[in-house]
């Protein structure tokens, strides 16, 4: 009898784990779709270079 209880516990744990893992993966999927929609994949040159430009001192004060 103990076996059955144990097995049931493991079963519910495994189902839980599966559900959680799909939720996590779903989070990444949403992040990806969001990125696509936002145009993150439209231009692969400008953003990585833009971040490297130093702002001139004047501008820093403005911000």
């Amino acid at each position: 009898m103990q076996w059955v209880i144990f097995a049931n516990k493991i079963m519910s744990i495994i189902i839980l784990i599966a559900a959680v893992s799909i939720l996590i993966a779903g989070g990444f999927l949403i992040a990806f779709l969001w990125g696509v929609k936002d145009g993150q994949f439209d231009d692969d040159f400008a953003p990585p270079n833009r971040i490297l430009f130093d702002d001139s001192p004047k501008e820093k004060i403005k911000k």
Partner: protein
Amino acid sequence: MVNINNNVQDISTCFHCGEDCSNKKIALEEKIFCCSGCKMVYEVLNQSNLCTYYDLNQNPGLAQKINVRADKFEFLEEHSIAQKLIRFADGKQTHVNFYLPQMHCSSCLYLLENIHKINPGIKSSRVNFTQKEVFIIFENKETTLRKVVETLTSIGYEPHISLQDISSKKAKKGSKNRLFKLGISGFCFANIMMLSFPEYFSLGGFMEKEIGQAYRYFILLLSLPIIFYSATEFFITAWKGLQNKFLNIDLPIALAIAITFGRSLYELISDKGSGYLDSMSGIVFFMLLGRLVQDRTYRSISFDRDFKSFFPIAVNVWQNGRFTPMAVEQIKVNDVIQIHTNELIPVDGILSKGEAEIDYSFVSGESIPLAKEIGSIVYAGAKQLGANIELVVVKEISQSYLTNLWNKDVFKSEKHSVSIIHKLGKYFTAIVLMIGGIAGLYWFLQGEILLMWNALTTILIVACPCALLLSSTFTNGNILRILSKNKFYLRHPDVIEDLSKINHIVFDKTGTLTPNKKAKVLYEGLWISDEDKILIASVLRQSTHPLSRIVLEHLSATQQRDVDSFKNTVGKGIEGWINDKHIKIGSAEFVQNDLSEKQGSSVYVKIDEQIIGVFRIKNSYRLGMAEVVQQLKLKYKLSVLSGDNDAEKPYLTSLMGSDSELLFNQDPEEKLAYIEHLQKAAQRQVMMIGDGLNDAGALKQSNVGIALSEGTNNFSPASDGIIDAHQFARLNKFIAFAASGQQIIMASFILSILYNIIGLYFAVQGTLSPLIAAILMPTSSLSIILITYGLSEWAGKKQGLQ
């Protein structure tokens, strides 16, 4: 790493554009510039504290030798024209998008996004580098559209504003949609595989049943977005094919997906097994991935340009006593229009004022400009090289000669060539259906009805021609990628196959075999003293005629004398007096009244009454042209079509061989007709290489039309592919590489058939378990992807491509 060239380079190259300027330099603060244009850009940037532009990349600019006329953008003040360019305006702010083909490095990015420092009226500017566009928001109170364009022009980024931008807005939705589909199918596929693992290994004995049940319904849930969203394009194209009575390759795929889904659903509901949803989702995912790789789009390159993109959008028209800018479409017959130096003439007209030096190279391929007298007709597409002229319009833009050429039928019909994949796919489908039928019949006769259904459905599932399609999509995708890295851009994957089938290559001469603006000068005659050189050069400097420029450059005289009573006889030559010496330069007719010599590219020189000699200007050919022609001659028939005179015939004959056809003085329609003749009468698969509008019809008519472009910034006519002019010498390698692609597809197709045979072995017996299907499907897909990738990389290396 230390850049050793650093010190050497500074000596004689322009600080702005990096061009060699040892002949003529302008110095400013220890910096050297090749022309005043470059210097001006530097000064503007220096004033606005934007010299980081020069720190990011060495000599990031582009040469500014051609000055932009001050009132060039006057037409932007015209409300109706400006309205077509503006994307959004609310009275205070205006949003506008410009296409800047000059954009090429991070310095450009830096400068364009900091443009508000030069023109404070600009509130924000954002660059889209892959599309070479800048999105600008400006305040209406502080600046105007015209001023924004002039600001951009002043720093060397003159926006390209053309009729085509206005009349059609590009659609860019497609690729995003496909990424969505890919993302969702990838997510579902990965999770279905994960949830199927326990099933594969039959873990957990008696737990299996209940957990398994729960997992199976999870899997079913996950497969729904795949079949109802990601896979829709297969169903849609298959259905469209059926409607047009055409069995396309998507049909067996759609069939296999539908059957797999139906059978899995049946198994799940009747609790007989777990179905093949894992295989199905994998197929959809890999197929979508393959199509994404294959259908790469070069967003900054346009293959569909028609004459409109070459034309200005506005031109000055005489109205109410003055010239005002007017949109080209609104020009009416009998309007008087003004054309400035170096401008394209947008409509057919009669010359009414000024001296016309018309460069028709764009339209007809003639390399030498023609002089036109008042009263003669000038066709649209020509470029005015001399001073300003006025024309009386005889035909509106929609009826001009060029537009008519474009409206010919060739431009309306799409080329249809049935790809090898579709042919194979047809046989393949037939064979699979036959095997399915035989196996089904066999089990039916054995009385095993259940096994019959099993066998029939699994055969269709296993034998879906996905592997065949995968091999072609991934091979083509990788070939396109490698070719584009080597600056040979193809419009569509089908062009690769067409390229492997050609057996006749037709070249255009002017601009294709011979670069524009580069010429070889041969001098025949007496020895010229340095003093005489200076005299000749001084007179030549007064003229803007291209031949004068070429000879002037050839003489490379440094000093200059004042020229008295200079006289220019249009189309003939020039003369002038220096210190009582009379210098006469020009055609044979002009200099020595010799009418026997045809109008061509010879410049005679006479000082006082003595003929000094003649400069013969020869076409100079593209670097490596002779070698590549020698190579191509071995495998293909060659022809040359030229709009120019036949002065170069002897050389070309010796180069191409006597069995090649060389045709001169061809107009655009004759070029088109020649290609058509080759295809119909001689049954040839023709590749045409050309560069100008005059080749546009022939490019469209040929099986593969390749446009040659000096730098992808430049504009090229509609074509199947664009080759960078510097890569011309590798043309034979590109063709060979494309041909090897077909072999790779065949090789991987054979491999995929092997996989199919293994699968079918189980399927005909009705014993294909989900486990075997789940192992077979991803391994076959993945190994085919790897093999096509590896083989195409190897084939590229073999041809010396990067």
